């Protein structure tokens, strides 16, 4: 199991145990993290699962692919560390990953 931490917009921390191969979005939904809507269920088609990856983790998490980058055009206050959480797969190296939920989804 891999540990993930979500910081909600109001600062509340959610620490969850995630299975490798699942997505950061799926674990947020399963654990009712507020602010992750994921309207399209992880199809990279809605941009409502937007998160900011903690600076210490951006290199390991990696850059969005072209389709995700296109979808990020529809998100709110996109920053260089923005990702769509349905496109981040949980794996061993991400143990301890911290992501922050934006104020609102697009």
């Amino acid at each position, binding site marked *: 199991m891999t540990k993930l931490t979500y910081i909600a917009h109001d600062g509340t921390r959610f620490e969850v145990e995630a299975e490798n191969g699942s997505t950061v979005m799926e674990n947020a939904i399963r654990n009712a993290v507020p602010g992750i809507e994921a*309207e*399209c269920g992880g*199809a990279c*088609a*809605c*941009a409502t699962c937007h998160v900011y990856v903690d600076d210490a983790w951006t290199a390991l998490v990696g850059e969005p692919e072209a389709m995700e*980058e*296109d979808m*990020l*055009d*529809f998100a*709110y*206050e*996109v920053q260089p560390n923005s990702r769509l959480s349905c496109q981040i797969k949980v794996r061993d190296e991400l143990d301890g990953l911290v992501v922050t939920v934006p104020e*609102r*989804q*697009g």
Partner: protein
Amino acid sequence: MSDITHTDVLIIGAGPIGLFAVFELGLFDMRCHLIDILDRPGGQCAELYPEKPIYDIPGYPVVGAQELVDKLLQQIAPFKPGFTFNRMVTALERLEGGGFRVTTDENEVFEAKVVVIAAGGGSFQPKRPPIPGIEAYEGSSVSYSVRCMEEFRGHDVVVVGGGDSALDWSLNLQPIARRVTLVHRRPEFRAAPDNVNKMHALQEAGALDLVIGQVSALSGEGGKLSSITVKGPESEVVVPCTRLLPFFGLTMKLGPVAEWGLHLHENQIPVDTEKFETSEPGIFAIGDINWYPGKLKLILSGFHEAALMAQAAKHVISPKERIVFQYTTSSTSLHKKLGVPD
């Protein structure tokens, strides 16, 4: 007074379920007309995930969403359904002599004996970008589509987005606007490369401005916009703006369905599971838009609902006719309707 289009069954929504309903209704000789706000059939499958594979359509281990729509269109072709696209159904009323009248946002009028609501998650509508205070300018300085180009003549127009609509309208409005500024989050565009090149050419000629960044604030008075602030990677710029056209994609909103006097259960229309009829006799609801205990928003469930609804609809239209259960495999009369050679 516009002409009235008459049909047996008027289907609101041309998603996969509305399309399949044409087949089931067609087997019972009911003619159908479909209306959708999108510019093509397919609903969510065509608009949200055309390229994605679906794995739970019985008989297809895997099928692309657009491919499924194409196959449905092929399957219903023998019944020659009518289609009206780019129109929102705004009103649904019962006629005194029986049947229903359906009106679109362009005031086209349809009359049908039965209405099937296959409106899915609601109608696709432009997404409102999350810019604080934008509501105050909607309808005056902010619009999400261009209905009449003249309204932009002589204005400081700002177009926001990086897709085809944003590029199309930047290019189309450039000759008549006082100034067109295109604002996009990053230097790469999703739009057709041809139009991106045209835009860059205008930019180099000094005839159009391109600003990279995200709109962070609007300023103006009394619903009239005067400028916008764009937050770029390094700095903020203020751009004069009297007409703002943001293109942030489409989202599903329940829309006018809520105003037709039907009972609702959290944005869905409750139906029975025998006929899939709403609280109004003669108006049926199938697919993602309906609700009943155990409801699953799956394409396969919607197909089943369409089959049962068709029997009930037939009964509304021809109450005296006995409905004979037949298989498409072997019924010669169904073969005739489907155009199957003897």
